[in-house]
C-alpha cells in the first residue's frame, strides 16, 4: 500500500530501511527464542538422562512411589471419568446425523468405539493429567525448591532426585495408563447411552459391535502411548519444579509452564505414535 502512494524515492528508501530493520529485529528475536528453546531442550534431555541413570540404582523409594501413585490416581479419577463419559456421549450424538445421511446408522458403535479408543480417551486423559498432575508436581517441587526443602532433604541423607523425581515420574508413567483404560471403558459407556438417545441399541448389540470392531492393533498402541504420555507429564512437571527460580512468582511460573509444555508434548507424542503404528501397519 505504502509503495503505491509514495512516489518520492528517498521516502521509498527510508520505508525500505524501516522494513528491513524490522526484519532484522524479528530475526534477532527469533534467534534468541531459538537459543533459549534449544538450551531448554538440552536441559530437559539432561534431566531425563539423569532419570535413567538414577532409576536402576538403590535405594528404591518404594513407599514414596506407592504414596504418589495412589495420590495421583485417586486425585484424577473422578475428573477423568466424568470427562471421558461426556466425550463418549457427545461424540456419539454428533456422529449420528452424518452416518444417518449415508444410511449407515448401524455403524454408529463401530465408528464411535474406534475414535474413542484410538484417540480421544487416551489424549483426553493425558491432557487432564497434564493440567491436574503436571501443575501439581510443578508447584509442589517448585515451592520445595524455593523454601530450601530440597536442600534439607539432601543434608538429611536423601538423594532428592530419587526421592522426589524418580518416584513421581514412575507414578505418572504407571498410573496414567490405568486411568486411560478406565477412560476407555467409561467413554464407551457414554457412547452406549448416546446411541440410545435417538435410536434403540440393545446393551448386547452395542458391546458385540464394539468388540467385533476393536482389534489388537487398535487397543495395544493406544495403551502403549499412554505410558509415554505419563512419562512426559511426570518428567516435565518435575523438571519445571526442580529448576524453579527463587521466589513465589517462580513457583507459579513453574506450574504454568509445566502444563503448557507437557500438553504440547502429549500432542507431539501422539503424532509420533500415529506415524509408528501407521508404518508398522498395526491398524
Amino acid at each position, binding site marked *: 500500500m505504502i509503495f503505491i502512494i509514495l512516489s518520492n524515492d528517498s521516502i521509498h528508501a527510508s520505508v525500505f530501511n524501516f522494513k528491513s530493520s524490522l526484519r532484522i529485529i524479528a530475526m534477532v528475536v527469533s534467534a534468541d527464542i531459538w537459543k533459549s528453546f534449544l538450551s531448554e531442550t538440552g536441559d530437559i534431555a539432561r534431566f531425563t538422562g539423569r532419570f535413567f541413570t538414577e532409576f536402576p540404582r538403590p535405594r528404591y523409594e518404594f513407599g514414596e512411589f506407592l504414596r504418589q501413585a495412589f495420590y495421583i490416581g485417586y486425585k484424577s479419577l473422578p475428573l477423568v471419568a466424568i470427562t471421558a463419559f461426556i466425550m463418549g456421549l457427545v461424540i456419539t450424538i454428533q456422529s449420528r446425523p452424518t452416518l444417518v445421511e449415508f444410511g449407515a446408522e448401524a455403524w454408529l458403535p463401530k465408528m464411535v468405539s474406534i475414535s474413542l479408543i484410538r484417540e480421544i480417551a487416551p489424549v483426553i486423559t493425558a491432557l487432564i493429567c497434564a493440567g491436574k498432575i503436571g501443575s501439581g508436581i510443578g508447584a509442589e517441587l517448585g515451592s520445595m525448591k524455593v523454601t530450601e526443602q530440597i*536442600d534439607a532433604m539432601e543434608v538429611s541423607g536423601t538423594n532428592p532426585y530419587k526421592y522426589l523425581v524418580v518416584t513421581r515420574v514412575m507414578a505418572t508413567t504407571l498410573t496414567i495408563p490405568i486411568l486411560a483404560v478406565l477412560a476407555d471403558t467409561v467413554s464407551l459407556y457414554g457412547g452406549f447411552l448416546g446411541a440410545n438417545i435417538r435410536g434403540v441399541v440393545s446393551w448386547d448389540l452395542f458391546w458385540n459391535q464394539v468388540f467385533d470392531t476393536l482389534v489388537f492393533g487398535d487397543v495395544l498402541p493406544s495403551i502403549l502411548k499412554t505410558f509415554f504420555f505419563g512419562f512426559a507429564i511426570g518428567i516435565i512437571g518435575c523438571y519445571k519444579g526442580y529448576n524453579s527460580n527463587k521466589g513465589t512468582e517462580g513457583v507459579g511460573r513453574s506450574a504454568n509452564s509445566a502444563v503448557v509444555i507437557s500438553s504440547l508434548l502429549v500432542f507431539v507424542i501422539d503424532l509420533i505414535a500415529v506415524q509408528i503404528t501407521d508404518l508398522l501397519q498395526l491398524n
Partner: protein
Amino acid sequence: MFAETETASVKNVNRKMDSVIHVEKLNKSFGNNHILHNFDFDLLKGENVVVLGKSGSGKSVLIKCIIGLMNPDSGSVNVLGKEIPELNHQELDRIRVKVGFLFQSNALYDSMTVRENLEFPLRRHWIQKNKETVNDLVMEALTNVGLAETVDMMPSELSGGMRKRIALARTLILKPEIILYDEPTTGLDPITGKEISTLMLEVQKKYNTSSVIISHDINCVKLVSNRVVMLIDGICYASGTYDELKVSTDKKIHKFFE
C-alpha cells in the same frame, strides 16, 4: 626473622589440627558475580563462631560450601578431617550425620507433620529402626525446644518462631558435633530471639558442640559468640571477640556494632 615465620607456620598447623572445620583459600563465584575470594576460616572444637556480614555478602554460600550443598570453584573445605569437595555421596552422608544445618528459611517439609519432619533425618540416615526409640528421640528433641505439644501439628499451623524452634529440633535430633546456624533469630521478636539464643548456648553446653552462626542480630552475637568473623568483600576482613571488635575504630567493622 626466620624463627618468626617458623613459629607462625607451627601455629598454623596446630590450629588446623584443633579445628573441626578448616576452610582455606575458598573461592566461589556465580558467573561474573564473585562472592568469596580466598576466604580463610577455622572453627575450633567447642567454639561458637559468629559470621557477620552484609546481606548478599555470601554468608549462606559459605556454609553451603561447608556442608557440600555447593561446590567451591577452588580452595579447601575440610570438615572433621575430610575434604568435602572430594567426597562421594555416601561419604558425604556420613559427614552430614555429624553436621547439623539450620536453614535460613527453616525448610520444614510442609506436607509432613512435625513428628514426620523430625523422624525424617533419623530414618533417612538409617539410624534408629526401633519405633519406640525413634519416638523417644522425637519427644526429647521437642521438649528441648519447649514444643512437645505440637508433635502432631502441621508446620503451616505454627507461628514463625515455633517453626524456627521445630527446625532447630530437627537439626539437633541427630546430636551433631557441629551445627551450622543460618540466621537463627532473624525475623523474630527480641524475646523469642533471646530464647533461641539461650537455647543455642544450652545445646552447646549439653552436647559440647561447635557451631558456626550467621547472624545480623547483635544481641544474639553478644550472647552466644566466642569469636566473631567479619565477612566483608568476600574475604575474612577481621576476626576477634565481640568486645574486641566492638571497640574497633575501623569504619567497616564499626558499622555493624552501631
